[in-house]
């Protein structure tokens, strides 16, 4: 038993470190109108943003916690104990040289500058409430691509920002979108001009360093007609004993014929509540693909969605959730068909280990007046232990006669005989488990960019090594 380290601690070692806090700006503990004025003052918000925040705060107070349909574990979040804004300034640096040493060391330990040199077109790095670094390669910038933090986007590109901000996910969508709208800070703002195909991915990395803290980044991505973008985000935090809240809002707009691929590898530590509304609007012939991998956190509630607004628009969600001891991955997808000939595809794979719980919630909506719409949904669950748990809640409403929908779900279990067979070939129990799990997600992972499929495979292996005593 001495060697039995919990799986979460093992696989999080890479991110489980923190430097002492040296924040210049700290909004203090708890949330009141004063907190919001503090944030607005530091960020020098225009008046409409201040108003927007204050209204959102009222909406937040008026909304109940969604415990009636989601986990009771949400009650463990104590809003009065959280710190809502921590930063050392609102201006992101363009060069790693200018980033303060301790913050730079954090991102170097996480390998971000190295990845940037190797295969990225641009990087934004957020530390607690603000982006500390954001830069794109000169060649990409010259094509008119904008990639900055949301604070900067709001200031320097108000004409684009204001047009789309809060339009995909309105403030009152749910309690947490309202909370984010009240206190948002950081996150990416991206605009890709018509016809520009950004060859290499842009990446954002979100890091929580402080304890008792809430990170509320706001990401807004607009890809103009015929343009293409791949965006990747990663996140880590040190493991604290207190609950940390991560409640972002992500809005994507794909204009006519645009393509967006949005990839997330979420590896928060096991004390983080990760509650993130993510939604896209796809105009005519546009394509939006969410690739969503949830490995970490205590509770994740995340259902990336696509509103298929224009004819022949296409939406896709490919998701993998790994729920280990003590974790609940409550994930899924939403596809709202709102035009003829729109298609959507959802493939979800979840793995529950030990007392881990994986929940799939799906919503597919095709109204009666539409023609030739198609949806395909597949959700597969793999249970590793007898006490592991999985639930599936698909809600599919397809009306009218000219539309088709297909739904498949499966639950399988790694059997003792299967593990014995692999052990007989010389694999340890942990190696056998991780091979089974990798096999289970293999067909999905093959569709991921190379760098992420390798990383994901490694994370699964670490997770399985820790899960067998």
């Amino acid at each position: 038993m001495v060697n039995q380290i919990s799986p979460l601690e093992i696989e999080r070692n890479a991110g489980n470190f923190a430097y002492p806090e040296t924040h210049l700006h700290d909004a203090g503990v708890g949330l009141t109108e004063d907190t919001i004025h503090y944030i607005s003052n530091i960020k020098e918000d225009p008046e409409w943003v201040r108003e927007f925040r204050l209204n959102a705060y009222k909406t937040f107070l008026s909304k109940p916690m969604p415990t009636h349909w989601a986990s009771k574990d949400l009650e463990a979040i104590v809003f009065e104990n959280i710190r809502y804004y921590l930063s050392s300034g609102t201006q992101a640096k363009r060069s790693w040289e200018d980033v303060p040493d301790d913050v730079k060391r954090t991102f170097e330990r996480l390998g971000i500058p190295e990845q940037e040199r190797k295969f990225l077109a641009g990087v934004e790095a957020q530390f607690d409430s603000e982006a500390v670094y954001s830069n794109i390669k000169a060649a990409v910038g010259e094509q008119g691509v904008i990639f900055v933090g949301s604070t900067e986007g709001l200031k320097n590109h108000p004409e684009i920002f204001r047009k789309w901000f809060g339009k995909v996910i309105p403030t009152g969508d749910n309690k947490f979108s309202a909370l984010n709208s009240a206190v948002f800070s950081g996150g990416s703002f991206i605009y890709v001009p018509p016809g520009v195909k950004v060859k290499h991915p842009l990446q954002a990395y979100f890091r929580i360093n402080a304890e008792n803290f809430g990170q509320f980044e706001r990401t807004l991505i607009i890809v103009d007609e015929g343009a293409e973008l791949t965006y990747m985000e990663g996140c880590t935090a040190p493991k604290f004993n207190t609950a940390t809240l991560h409640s972002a809002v992500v809005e994507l707009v794909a204009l006519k014929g645009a393509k967006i691929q949005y990839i997330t590898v979420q590896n928060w530590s096991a004390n983080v509540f990760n509650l993130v509304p993510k939604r896209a609007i796809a105009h005519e012939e546009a394509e939006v693909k969410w690739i969503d991998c949830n490995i970490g956190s205590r509770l994740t509630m995340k259902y990336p969605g696509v509103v298929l607004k224009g004819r022949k628009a296409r939406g896709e969600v490919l998701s993998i959730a790994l729920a280990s001891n003590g974790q609940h991955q409550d994930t899924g997808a939403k596809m709202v068909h709102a035009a003829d000939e729109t298609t959507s595809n959802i493939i979800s794979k979840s793995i529950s280990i030990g007392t881990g719980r994986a929940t799939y919630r799906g919503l597919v909506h095709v109204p009666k007046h539409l023609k030739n719409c198609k949806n395909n949904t597949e959700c597969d669950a793999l249970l590793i232990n007898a006490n592991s748990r999985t639930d599936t809640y698909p809600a599919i409403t397809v009306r009218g006669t000219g539309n088709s929908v297909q739904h498949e779900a499966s639950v399988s279990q790694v059997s003792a005989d299967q593990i014995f067979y692999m052990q007989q070939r010389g694999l340890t129990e942990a190696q056998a488990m991780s091979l089974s799990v990798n096999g289970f997600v293999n067909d999905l992972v093959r569709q991921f960019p190379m760098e992420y499929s390798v990383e994901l495979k490694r994370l699964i292996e670490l997770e399985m090594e820790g899960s067998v005593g």
Partner: protein
Amino acid sequence: MNRLEIQNLRATIAEQEIIRGLSLAVPKGEVHAIMGPNGSGKSTLAKVLAGHPDYKVLSGSVMMDDEDVLGLPPDERARKGLFLAFQYPNEIPGVTIANFLRAAVQARLPEGEELEATDYYAKLYEKMDLLEMDRSFTSRSVNEGFSGGEKKRNEILQLAMLEPKYAVLDETDSGLDIDALKVVAHGVNSLRGPNLGVLLITHYQRLLDYIVPDHVHVMVQGRIVRSGDKSLALQLEEKGYDWVRDDVAEPAMA
């Protein structure tokens, strides 16, 4: 001594004693066949040797080249050179044969040593050529949707790649038509040699027409009741298992 030696082995599953004082030795370089009627404990013996967790050993020993293996977990027995070709091999969805075997070969290397992909594939293709297998075979998921014959050929390919010291082949002929049987037998015969001891478990004599054993043992009610050369198999074929069952009964009546 270079042999797989089983002495006075007694083993149970779900508190029922299936192996009841079995002794047997397979020297390296020899092929021994165990024949016996249904329910005599042949497959149980295979599982106990490999260390299946459902079976409990009451007493006795299993030594591999003078090393006791009963205290070792299944994967360690395997890495030390014990191979079991399963009667009913399991499926591993999404994992290709090539990747599975690669993990198994890698598991045999010292810690920190990484298997070279080119060396691995060179060896894999060499073994596949030896077994007259199509190259596309190893890009399929392990046993998923395989016919009975394909599953058995996959077992033989793994045997060839992992190069064990001792191989237990459990009912390798079951579910095979005559053509598939010949292919499997060809595989086993081409792996025969001074560095491999084989324990061949079968219900029917017909496999032994293709894999000719050095010794034949007859197992009834959890023990070896008779041993001899290959002619014993033919005698069994002729007289049926009742002939040896009488042997088992005799001492009790005496």
